C-alpha cells in the first residue's frame, strides 16, 4: 500500500464519519473567533437553543475592526464598537476566553495563536477568516471558514467538509541574498495564479522552505489561500519544536515529551503520492512586488509589467492601478507604506524593518504606518528599542489590529494613492475605496519608505 501524505494522515485522524456521497464530518481541535464573522453564528446557536459544545477549545480576540490608536478609549465608530461589544457579551455568555482590547494577549488572530502556543502540530484549526491557513506552518490542518461553518463548530466542534486534493509545492536550492519568505510566496502565486490551487490543500517543502524561520513559514502558509488553495502546511521539524517550547499554552513536562514524540511522526511518507507536484528553483526568485489587483499579478522588482493579452479583466486592473504595460515599476513614486497584517507583522518583520531604517529617515512624500501583530509583538519591539528606531525614522508605530490590510477601521489609504504594503491582498479598494496597493516584503516596504519610490532593499542591506 502506498504511503500517506502528512495532510492525509491528519485529515483521516480527524474524520468522525464519512457521509455517503457527501462530505466528511471533520473534528476541530481549535476554533479561533473574532468580532466580524462570529456574531451571526452566536445568534444562530441561540436561535436553535443549542449550547456552545466545547467552549474551552475556542479562543476569541478583537482584531479586524479595532482602532490602532488610543485603544484605551471607547471605540468612536458606533458600528465597530457594537461589534466588539457583541463579541465580549457573546464570549461571557458562552464561556469563551476572550483576548479583547487592552488584554496583554490581544492581537491579530493568526499572530496570537502561534505566539501563545495555542497552535500546535497535528491539530485541526479553523477560524472565520481565510488567512487561517497561516497556522499550517506548524504542520496543522488550518483553514478559513464561513459564518455558517463557525456556527457548526459552535454547535458540534465539527464541520462538514469535502476532503481537498493534495498538492506539493517544492522550493529547493539556496535563496539569493535579500530574498525573503514573502518573495517566495509572491513568486509562487505569480506562477500558479489565484485559482491554480483551488480544490487543493498544499504542502510546502524543499530546502528553501526548510531554511525559513517559523515567522517566514507563517508568511508562506498565510498566502496559500491567495493561490485558491484552502490551506498550506509545512511538516514540523526542530525549528517548529524550538518555537513552541515554553510558550504559554504549549505542553509542559511529561506532556511535552509525549507530544514531541508524536509531532516527530508528522511527516509525509517517502512513497506517498500527491495529486499534483510543482517544483521551483529557489535561485530563480528575486524580490517581488505586485502591479495589479490580484496577488498573482506580481513581478520581480527588476522586471516590467507584462503586456496585455486582450483580456478585459487585465486591462481593467492596469487602468485601476494606473500602471503602464511594458514599463518597470522601479522609481514609481509611492504615497503610503503599510507594514502589518497577519502576513507580516511579527517581531521578525519589525526587526527586519528596523535594520533597514535605522539611522535613516523616511522620504517626505511617504506616510509610513507600522502596525504590530499583537500586544506581545508591540511589547517585544519596545523591549528591543525598535520603537525608537522607527519613530526616529518618521514611522508611526500603531497599536495591534488588522488595520489597513482591509481598512475596516479608520486606517484607510486615500483614493488614488499608492501604498506599498506587507499585507496579502491588492484587490480594488482593499485598503480603502480607490486605494492602489502594491504587495511586497517588509524589507522592500522599508526601503520604499526611505526612498519614496519603488525600489528593492539591496542598497540598504549591509
Amino acid at each position, binding site marked *: 500500500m502506498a504511503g500517506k501524505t502528512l495532510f492525509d494522515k491528519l485529515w483521516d485522524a480527524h474524520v468522525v464519519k464519512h457521509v455517503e456521497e457527501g462530505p466528511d464530518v471533520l473534528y476541530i481541535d481549535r476554533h479561533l473567533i473574532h468580532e466580524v464573522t462570529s456574531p451571526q453564528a452566536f445568534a444562530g446557536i441561540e436561535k436553535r437553543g443549542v449550547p456552545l459544545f466545547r467552549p474551552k477549545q475556542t479562543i476569541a480576540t478583537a482584531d479586524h475592526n479595532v482602532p490602532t490608536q488610543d485603544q484605551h478609549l471607547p471605540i468612536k465608530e458606533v458600528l465597530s464598537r457594537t461589534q466588539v461589544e457583541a463579541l465580549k457579551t457573546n464570549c461571557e455568555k458562552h464561556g469563551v476566553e476572550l483576548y479583547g482590547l487592552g488584554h496583554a494577549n490581544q492581537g491579530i488572530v493568526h499572530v496570537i495563536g502561534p505566539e501563545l502556543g495555542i497552535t500546535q502540530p497535528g491539530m485541526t484549526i479553523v477560524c472565520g477568516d481565510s488567512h487561517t491557513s497561516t497556522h499550517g506552518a506548524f504542520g496543522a490542518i488550518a483553514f478559513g471558514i464561513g459564518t455558517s461553518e463557525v456556527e*457548526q463548530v459552535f454547535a458540534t466542534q465539527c464541520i462538514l467538509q469535502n476532503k481537498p486534493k493534495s498538492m506539493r509545492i517544492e522550493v529547493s536550492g539556496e535563496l539569493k541574498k535579500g530574498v525573503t519568505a514573502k518573495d517566495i510566496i509572491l513568486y509562487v502565486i505569480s506562477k500558479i495564479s489565484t485559482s491554480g490551487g483551488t480544490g487543493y490543500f498544499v504542502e510546502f517543502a524543499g530546502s528553501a522552505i526548510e531554511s525559513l524561520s517559523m515567522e517566514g513559514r507563517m508568511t508562506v502558509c498565510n498566502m496559500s489561500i491567495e493561490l485558491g488553495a484552502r490551506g498550506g502546511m509545512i511538516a514540523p521539524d526542530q525549528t517548529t519544536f524550538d518555537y513552541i517550547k515554553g510558550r504559554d499554552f504549549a505542553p509542559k513536562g511529561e506532556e511535552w515529551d509525549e507530544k514531541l514524540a508524536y509531532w516527530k511522526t508528522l511527516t509525509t511518507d517517502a512513497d506517498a503520492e500527491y495529486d499534483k507536484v510543482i517544483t521551483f528553483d529557489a535561485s530563480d526568485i528575486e524580490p517581488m512586488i505586485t502591479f495589479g489587483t490580484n496577488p498573482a499579478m506580481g513581478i520581480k522588482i527588476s522586471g516590467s509589467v507584462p503586456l496585455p493579452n486582450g483580456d478585459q479583466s487585465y486591462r481593467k486592473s492596469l487602468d485601476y492601478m494606473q500602471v503602464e504595460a511594458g514599463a518597470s515599476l522601479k522609481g514609481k513614486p509611492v504615497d503610503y507604506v503599510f507594514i502589518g497584517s497577519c502576513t507580516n507583522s511579527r517581531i521578525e518583520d519589525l526587526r527586519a524593518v528596523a535594520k533597514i531604517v535605522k539611522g535613516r529617515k523616511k522620504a517626505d512624500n511617504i506616510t509610513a504606518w507600522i502596525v504590530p501583530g499583537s500586544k506581545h509583538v508591540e511589547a517585544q519591539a519596545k523591549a528591543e528599542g525598535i520603537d525608537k528606531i522607527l519613530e526616529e525614522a518618521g514611522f508611526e508605530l500603531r497599536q495591534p489590529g488588522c488595520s489597513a490590510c482591509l481598512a475596516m477601521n479608520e486606517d484607510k489609504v486615500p483614493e488614488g494613492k499608492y501604498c506599498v504594503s506587507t499585507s496579502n491582498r491588492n484587490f480594488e479598494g482593499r485598503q480603502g475605496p480607490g486605494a492602489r496597493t502594491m504587495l511586497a516584503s517588509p524589507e522592500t516596504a522599508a526601503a520604499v519608505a526611505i526612498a519614496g519610490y519603488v525600489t528593492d532593499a539591496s542598497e540598504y542591506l549591509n
Partner: protein
Amino acid sequence: MEKFTKIISPVVPLPLENVDTDQIIPARFLKSTSRDGFGENLFRDWRYKKDGSENADFVLNNVKEGEVLVAGKNFGCGSSREHAAWAITDYGFKVVVSSFFADIFKGNALNNGLLPVQVSEDFLQSILAQTKAHVAVDLEAQTITLQETGEQESFEISAYKKHCLLNGLDDIDFLLSNKEAIKEFEISSRIYSGTPTTLK
C-alpha cells in the same frame, strides 16, 4: 433554509474574471451583527460613484430583473466572508453561474441556499454572447439550459448538498443528529483535549 427547486430567469451578466469577495461586499460594510441587509451594498464600489449616485455603466443599474448572476472564472476568490453570499441572496439572486468558483465562496453559497452552477468556458461564453439571455436551472436534473438557443449542460453537486437544497435542510441539523458519534470520537480518537484556558 428555503427549498430550491427549478427556476427560469433572465441572467444578469458580469463578464469579469477573478471577482473577489472584497468587490462583492467591501470590508467596511461588514459591521452588522445580523445576516440581513447586505444586498444594499452588493458590488458597492462598482455600483455607485463616490458621491453615492448610481454608476450607469454597471450591470446591476441596467438590468433590474433576474435571479441568476453570470460571472467570469474564479468567482468569489479572496476573503472567506460569508457576507458575500448573504449580499448576493439578499439582493435577490438564487443562482450564480461561472466557469470556476473559489472553494470557500462555493461552500458559503451552498450553506445559504444560493446555488453555484459551474459550467464550461464555452457555455459561459454562449450565455454572455446573448444580449438578453434566459436560463432554466433544474437542480433535480442537475441541468442548466440557455433558453435562447436550447444549449444545455449538466452541472455537478454532491448528492448530500443536493438533498439539503431540495429539502431546505442545513448542515447544522445534520451535525447535531451526529452528536453521539462526535462524543465517541472525542473519547476514542482524540489527541488534543480542551485547553485549560485561564485569563491571565
